[in-house]
């Protein structure tokens, strides 16, 4: 018996839950306080937005909404490491990444408000919209990465999957494709411990989810997903490797879903409140704030001002959302094909008539 291959999974953390730098090699961003403050502010804005969106849903002004509470570091960290020309293929709750990339809050609301126009957003035109069928987006990202490779462009695709979704064939095939084609792709498993009611341990017998990348021969790494600095550093390295022809990376970001799965869910049915309370101690925003404050980069006053600013921005976005004119019944038909086929043209006419007489 000879050993023919060996592998290991490393775990990266730079900021302890107490907001202290740990380990020896802090990445450049750890001391780039201007950037860190910008990202901190975006994390807070994301959280304020999130609370508002849930409130809108509760009052019937929004449909089902998937909260990002607790994921702010991994979402914003991904966004900050990406370039505009990279492509992002999200699941459905990565608002932090999308805001960084230029998607407007009102557009997120439009989408969850049941309006396709939300997906015709202000972010990069090449970014993928929200994706509901779990893990399918990972293959779209692989296709995007393939495009960059074939065209010789120095661009990378970033795609996200949950701990639950990492069980699905689409994700596993995307990893395999990334290895086989050496794609400029970063696959981020956002392990928030729950897939609706199914806990992480029921999804996989592996000690880590990162090791799924080993299957395809990819560099694979675990990162503290509540540590913005670590997420940024790991993503930055993976993206640079991808853009420069070094192939794909699998990143498992460990975090926790502090909210219900969506507003349609009631997590108290299946998970103990103590677990949530415990997880809250590791949450990303206060951690980064402590770090900034202990470095005299942030004050209680700034925090107050920020919260006010965020509230105002969110209110403006809600206002914009609520005042968006209704979509036309013909919108249903007009974006199905580049050119409307005759049968659809007839149905469109009929729908218009029903609308006017009905």
């Amino acid at each position, binding site marked *: 018996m000879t050993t023919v291959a060996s592998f290991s999974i490393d775990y990266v953390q730079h900021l302890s839950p107490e907001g202290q730098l740990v380990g020896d090699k802090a990445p450049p961003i750890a001391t780039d306080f201007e950037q860190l403050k910008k990202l901190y502010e975006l994390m807070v804005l994301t959280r304020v937005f999130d609370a508002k969106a849930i409130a809108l849903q509760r009052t019937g002004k929004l*449909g*089902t909404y998937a909260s990002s509470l607790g994921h702010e570091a991994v979402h914003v960290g991904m966004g900050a490491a990406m370039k505009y020309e990279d492509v992002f293929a999200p699941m*459905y709750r990565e608002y932090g990444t999308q805001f960084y990339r230029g998607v407007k809050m009102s557009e997120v609301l439009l*989408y*969850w*408000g*049941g*309006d*396709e126009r939300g997906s015709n957003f202000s972010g990069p035109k090449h970014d993928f919209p*929200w994706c*509901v*069928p*779990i893990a399918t987006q990972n293959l779209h990202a692989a296709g995007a990465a393939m495009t960059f490779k074939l065209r010789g462009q120095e661009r990378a695709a970033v795609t996200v999957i*949950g701990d*639950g*979704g990492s*069980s*699905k*064939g*689409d994700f596993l095939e995307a990893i395999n494709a990334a290895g086989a084609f050496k794609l400029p792709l970063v696959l981020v498993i956002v392990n928030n411990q729950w*897939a*609706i*009611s*199914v806990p992480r341990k*029921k*999804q*996989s017998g592996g000690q880590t989810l990162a090791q799924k990348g080993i299957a395809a021969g990819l560099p694979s790494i675990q990162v503290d997903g509540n540590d913005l600095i670590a997420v940024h550093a790991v993503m930055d390295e993976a993206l640079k490797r991808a853009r420069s022809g070094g192939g794909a990376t699998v990143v498992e970001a460990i975090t926790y879903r502090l909210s219900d799965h969506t507003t*349609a*869910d009631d997590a108290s*049915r*299946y998970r103990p409140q103590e677990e949530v309370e415990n997880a809250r101690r590791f949450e990303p925003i206060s951690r980064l704030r402590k770090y900034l404050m202990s470095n005299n980069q942030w004050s209680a006053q700034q925090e107050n001002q920020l919260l006010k600013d965020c509230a105002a921005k969110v209110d403006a976005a809600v206002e914009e959302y609520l005042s968006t004119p*209704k*979509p036309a*019944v013909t*919108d*249903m*038909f007009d974006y*199905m094909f580049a050119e409307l086929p005759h*049968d*659809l043209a007839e*149905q469109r006419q009929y*729908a218009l008539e*029903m*609308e006017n007489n*009905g």
Partner: protein
Amino acid sequence: MAKITLVEAVTMALAHELEHDPDVVILGEDVGINGGVFRATAGLAQRFGEDRVIDTPLAETMIAGMTVGMATQGMKPVAEAQFMGFIYPMVDHVISHAGRFRNRTRGRMHCPLVIRAPYGGGIHAPEHHSESTEAMFAHMPGVRVVIPSSPSRAYGLLLAAIRNPDPVIFLEPKRIYRLHKEEVEDDGEELPLDMCFVLREGKDVTLVTWGAMTKETLEATDKLAEQGISAEVIDVATISPLDMDTIYESVAKTGRCVIVQEAPKNCGVGAEIAANLADSQGLYSLQAPVKRVAGYDTVMPLFRLEKKYMPSVDRIIKAVNETLEVS
């Protein structure tokens, strides 16, 4: 005897079979402690244990493939697709295996499985949560497709589906999961899997429908009655194999037929019904064109427009009037 909703009737049927047949197991995403996102399996894991009501990893192909494997080994698995929009990764195992094992092995193996899925739109859900693609499954040889439209039919048809020795796709119209309550006795009595249900008798026109569209169809029937028009309403229920005889009989009486389906029109189940009416057993009864009131051949829109998409009472009445104009 308590009055229960359609979704409660589903739960009752599942519990009944779990209780009486040790080979029955339930599997799917969130079907365990959580009781399913629509509560269709509420309390079952608690009552029958996590070995009978199994939360699976998030992988629909896996659920379908394992379900096929379990069924061929003598279990009677009842799998759940969380929404019909997520059933497509199961399609390969349904068409390539579930519907074929008995035939392929000349009876040596067979697939007594059920795949349940909530289906249809109208509940203000996100994208992909409003699919009605029953026609896709109806086109598959060796597979039954069943859709209940009331608590008692949900109970009796699901019992029959689970007990049936062949694969059944069981689609639950989630828009009417909690619409009505009905007294349903937990007596283990199944309903036949090859028979339409006549919901209303009438003589002027036959309305053929299934699933949640029974609601609008019955409402339209009431309105038509006010105008003195007597509509017969047929709930197809067993989409495949299709009981055309009941429909032929009704159309022989009324001479007119309007089919109401939520799915896109093109190549839907309504097409099969109308096509049969255009053939020998139906054509000579027809006194007017067969109308289909269907979803448009577009993507089901997000919910701001979804009402505009779905067949409405008005659209049904308009179609009925069109068939009645012909003399």
